[in-house]
């Protein structure tokens, strides 16, 4: 008998791409069809998994690809420690371990016919990117799609090819920005912090759902702007991350108060956040 809860699937790397300094994307294909089928039966956008390299360990990231693309999954991560270094050093053709999907998801089925506003900063685009593609792959079901994405510098913007693609689409409104001083001579986007640019572009809150993901400081200053623009707390979504080991509500470290990010989240509305013990975050 084995511990089924912690049993990982074997994934083959079919594509690896450097997105920004120390930020890498891996496209992973399930070695076993049964694992692939089991994954996509459960996977809804917003869920996460644990990616690992035997000998190094496991790390938690969102699934950065949408459930509408069922041949593979992608993850994008920054190289910061032992596990992420081992994952980043893996090459196309080599394998990694994966278990998941875990957690709750963005309720996009309830968003049909609504405008969707995505706001992301830096390395926090990946958990939003899966939702963007999920919505774009089912474009007709939703109204306007707007994306506001910022990073410290031009080099730190991730998914540059996809930003270009979204920017050229007629059915997507994309605004990119970099922090003052982070621009290059040929930079054509905005210059300014995400909350400032959000206030300047002032998207309408009517019939609109907002998704915000970024570093805590960006979130802190973005939420008041959204409130000012008239967004109701129940219509503003974010996805949290805490250190996790089990992913299934047992190991006891991701909780914020009595809320388990792995099990009750990672997706929360601003309304829910207001009732959480944010000093524990």
């Amino acid at each position: 008998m084995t511990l089924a809860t912690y049993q990982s699937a074997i994934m083959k790397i079919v594509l690896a791409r450097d997105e920004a300094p120390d930020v890498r994307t891996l496209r992973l294909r399930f070695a076993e069809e049964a694992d692939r089928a089991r994954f996509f039966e459960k996977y809804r956008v917003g869920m996460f998994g644990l990616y690992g390299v035997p000998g190094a360990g496991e790390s938690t990231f969102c699934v950065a690809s949408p459930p509408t693309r069922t041949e593979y999954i992608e993850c994008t991560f920054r190289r910061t420690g032992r596990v992420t270094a081992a994952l980043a050093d893996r090459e196309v053709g080599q394998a990694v371990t994966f278990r998941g999907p875990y957690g709750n998801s963005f309720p996009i089925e309830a968003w049909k016919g609504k405008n969707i506003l995505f706001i992301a900063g830096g390395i926090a685009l990946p958990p939003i990117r899966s939702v963007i593609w999920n919505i774009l792959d089912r474009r007709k079901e939703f109204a306007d799609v707007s994306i506001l994405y910022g990073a410290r510098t031009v080099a730190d913007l991730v998914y540059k090819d996809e930003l270009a693609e979204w920017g050229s689409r007629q059915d997507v409104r994309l605004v990119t920005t970099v922090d003052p001083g982070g621009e290059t001579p040929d930079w054509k986007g905005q210059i300014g912090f995400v909350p400032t640019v959000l206030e300047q572009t002032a998207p309408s809150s009517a019939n609109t759902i907002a998704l915000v993901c970024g570093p805590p400081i960006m979130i802190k200053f973005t939420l008041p702007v959204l409130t000012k623009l008239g967004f109701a707390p129940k219509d503003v979504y974010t996805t949290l991350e805490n250190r996790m080991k089990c992913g299934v509500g047992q190991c006891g470290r991701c909780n914020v108060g009595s809320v388990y990010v792995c099990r009750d989240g990672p997706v929360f509305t601003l309304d829910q956040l207001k009732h959480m013990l944010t000093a524990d975050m």
Partner: protein
Amino acid sequence: MKTLDANKLSDLAAALAAAGYRVVAPVRDGREIRMQEWKPGAAIDTSAVPVNSIKEFLFPRCEVIARYRLEGDDFSPEPVATDAPKTAALAVRPCDAAAMVMLDKVFNWEYKDDAWNARRAATTIVPVVCTAADQDCFCTSVGGAPDATAGADAVLRSADGGRKFILQPLGPKGQALVAAAGAVLSEGDAKADPPAQVPVRFDAKAVTEWCGGNFESPLWREVSLACLGCGACAYCCPTCHCFDIQDEATRTESVRLRNWDTCGLSLFTLHSSGHNPRPDQASRWRQRVMHKFRYFVERFGGLACTGCGRCARLCPGGMAIAQVCKEIDEARKAVVK
């Protein structure tokens, strides 16, 4: 009723071992009494609360959850066997037995933990009613009792002034154990000794309530100042169940291990970015108390503390969770006045 002479617990252990049980019992180990696998010749000693709980026999300190063969940059999974021997946990404390019921909830919350459940199913828990308690015992403050039978498959009661034990089965596993004990037990009458008197030291409901509104109270800093962050309290605790998952590898093999961990350690919640949601010992102690007295109540409908007092006996800083709860209880009363 089934009885045996008080000095015959080792005979009972021997009979159960002969019947195929792994017997876990309190055995004197130098200056300490330790729950350990009983071996012939070992003297079972029920005179004090053992330093460790029975948790480790159901939830090992370190457990292999995955194994991989490494070949260069390639790897292939290997099967992992979970060890779940038929076990008799003999003369455990009622507070330990009660704790296993709490852990059942955690390990079956949403995802079923096969290893825990297999070991739990294979284990017969036989608490011994406490006829003495020390100054650190506080089971009666957290809904327990020295003669409580929560989580018990059978119960041992001291009788006839300590000269005998009564072994009373409480369910099918207990009946199977009594049957396996065979002739070691005799049929006869004995008068159970009164259980220990354990004074109620604080109002647990009040602590739960206070924790709901005092996340940022200065009390957390005050009560945690003596904490060295060693984690001994969690390791000896029968209900602490937080764990870490780490890989260890040689050149040819890698194992993924589930290891005991604790919210008292500074690395527990540290993000790779350097951010730590619980940056100081005050926030870690708050987590420890809140988890046991508030969050567990919210999520599982009970306290995650059974009042065994081990954490207080072992703490090198002289801290005691019962004392912290008492201070909380008093702080609450001060506010009410």
